[in-house]
């Protein structure tokens, strides 16, 4: 009986690990992806230049004033909503929309049994790529911070979360990057849904940018209605936008401002589950209909 079940599971099915391996290797054969992999040090340098010029206009006692310890966080805040989102959108457009619509996946489908499995593997592989990028960016910005930025005994954290010395600061940075890793996973789920319904990679790119713009515009419009809400209600509505969570919400989570830690976690998880389920539904339907 157990032997039979064992055979059922292995009667020709490709192990999921092999699928991951195949997707991972193919990802690295793309020139775009290889170029993207070089982006971390470049982005760190660009951020450093920007933050140094900002420092010239800021009082050293402010949390926005970049120091060796706060550089990785300050350098990530802007890059998350721009470069990292952009990279994920390109990955989704290339590996999902283009490969599916052009028929390039057909030979894999003959072997891997279902689109649902292929797409799950793709999501994990793209996420792994982005997490490695994130780790590389952490290292690069920490190094650049140490070389070019002042390193005071202590410096203030965001939202009055206290003063930190360099070592504590790095721990704080790690926490920030861990939360960023979660948001990236949720945003990648959103982009994978868009890529599943997009008819071409250009459409996917357009829809993705549209999603990001909307995530920026809606909270911005909300600021005009600020007087209508209690503070708690207001910040919660504001952070329903994944983009705002990326931009300002991570530091707020670490300071647990207005109980946002749990709220924002819920928002991140909500996006991930909702869009993950919608994406799976699209592929399940295509698996059984076409």
């Amino acid at each position, binding site marked *: 009986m157990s032997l*039979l079940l064992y055979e059922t599971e292995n*009667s*020709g099915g490709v192990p999921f690990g*092999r699928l991951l391996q*195949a997707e991972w290797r*193919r990802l690295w054969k793309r020139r775009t992806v290889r170029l993207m992999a070089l982006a971390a040090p470049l982005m760190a340098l660009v951020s450093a230049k920007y933050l140094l010029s900002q420092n010239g206009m800021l009082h050293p006692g402010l949390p926005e004033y970049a120091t060796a310890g706060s550089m990785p966080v300050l350098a990530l805040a802007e890059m998350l909503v721009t470069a990292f989102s952009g990279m994920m959108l390109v990955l989704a457009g290339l590996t999902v929309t283009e490969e599916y619509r052009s*028929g390039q996946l*057909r030979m894999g489908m003959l*072997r891997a049994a279902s689109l649902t499995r292929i797409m799950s593997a793709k999501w994990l592989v793209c996420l792994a790529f982005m997490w490695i990028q994130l780790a590389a960016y952490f290292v690069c910005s920490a190094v650049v911070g140490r070389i070019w930025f002042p390193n005071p005994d202590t410096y203030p954290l965001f939202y009055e979360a206290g003063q930190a010395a360099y070592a504590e600061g790095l721990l704080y940075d790690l926490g920030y990057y861990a939360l960023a890793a979660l948001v990236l996973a949720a945003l990648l789920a959103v982009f994978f849904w868009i890529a599943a319904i997009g008819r071409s990679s250009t459409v996917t790119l357009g829809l993705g940018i549209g999603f990001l713009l909307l995530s920026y515009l809606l909270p911005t419009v909300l600021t005009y209605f600020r007087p209508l809400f209690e503070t708690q209600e207001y910040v919660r509505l504001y952070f329903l936008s994944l983009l705002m969570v990326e931009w300002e919400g991570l530091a707020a989570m670490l300071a647990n401002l207005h109980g946002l830690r749990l709220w924002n976690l819920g928002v991140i998880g909500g996006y991930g589950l909702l869009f993950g389920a919608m994406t799976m539904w699209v592929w399940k339907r295509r698996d059984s209909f076409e």
Partner: protein
Amino acid sequence: MNTAERDTNPRIVIPQAEPVLVETGNVTKKVRRRALLQNVSFTVERGEICGLLGPNGAGKTTLIRAMTGLIRPDSGDIRIGGRSVVREREAAVLHVGAIVESPIFFPYMTGRDNLDNLALLHPNLPTRKEREQRVREVLEIVRMDKRADERVKTYSLGMKQRLGIAQALLGDPELLILDEPANGLDPMGIRELRELILRLKHELGKTVLVSSHLLDELQKICDRIVVIREGEQVFAGSREEMIGRHSSLEEAFVEMMTS
């Protein structure tokens, strides 16, 4: 009652001696009430080359999609090696290699890299060494070893077709399904393809199902022919049966298409 018990029966291993490899019974597929396939029933025996003949839009690709489990027929069954593609797809298509519609590869990768990547998805090629070895073998069979390390985007249509056949051979399947492999080839290319398919049969003992909208391409190599028109099977049988009372295969085909 429980699935394990219900599944026991079809799992009995059919001995190699069983002559019938492919058996389709009353396959029907409808899309928005239009029948793309209607009651298609035929068999293919081991070691045969079976031609699937029909004009453009007849439903050849649709049938091949159903045979490889890419779509599910509304009714009817397809058995390959005794296993139902509809109910136990993975086991049934394990011994099938196919080109469906056209051989589309990842253009930014070399031919060899494309095959290496697909080989990863074969459970019977567990180690890297075995995969590389097998890829070399199939490239040699289709005579693509010289150009294997160039990117696929530089390949001609004929080379892509041959790489497509190489890809289908990766898992050393009993059955090869080739969807219009002669499409877009020049006469020399078509001739080479014909020789390749005959080699697959005679030297490697493969069973081949090959589709075409041109009778010419098929009549020289096929042992058996299935003709479909607008989703309906109008003939299934040996070459000789098809010729029947007509003076030639062509005449028989023309009559089928016009009657």
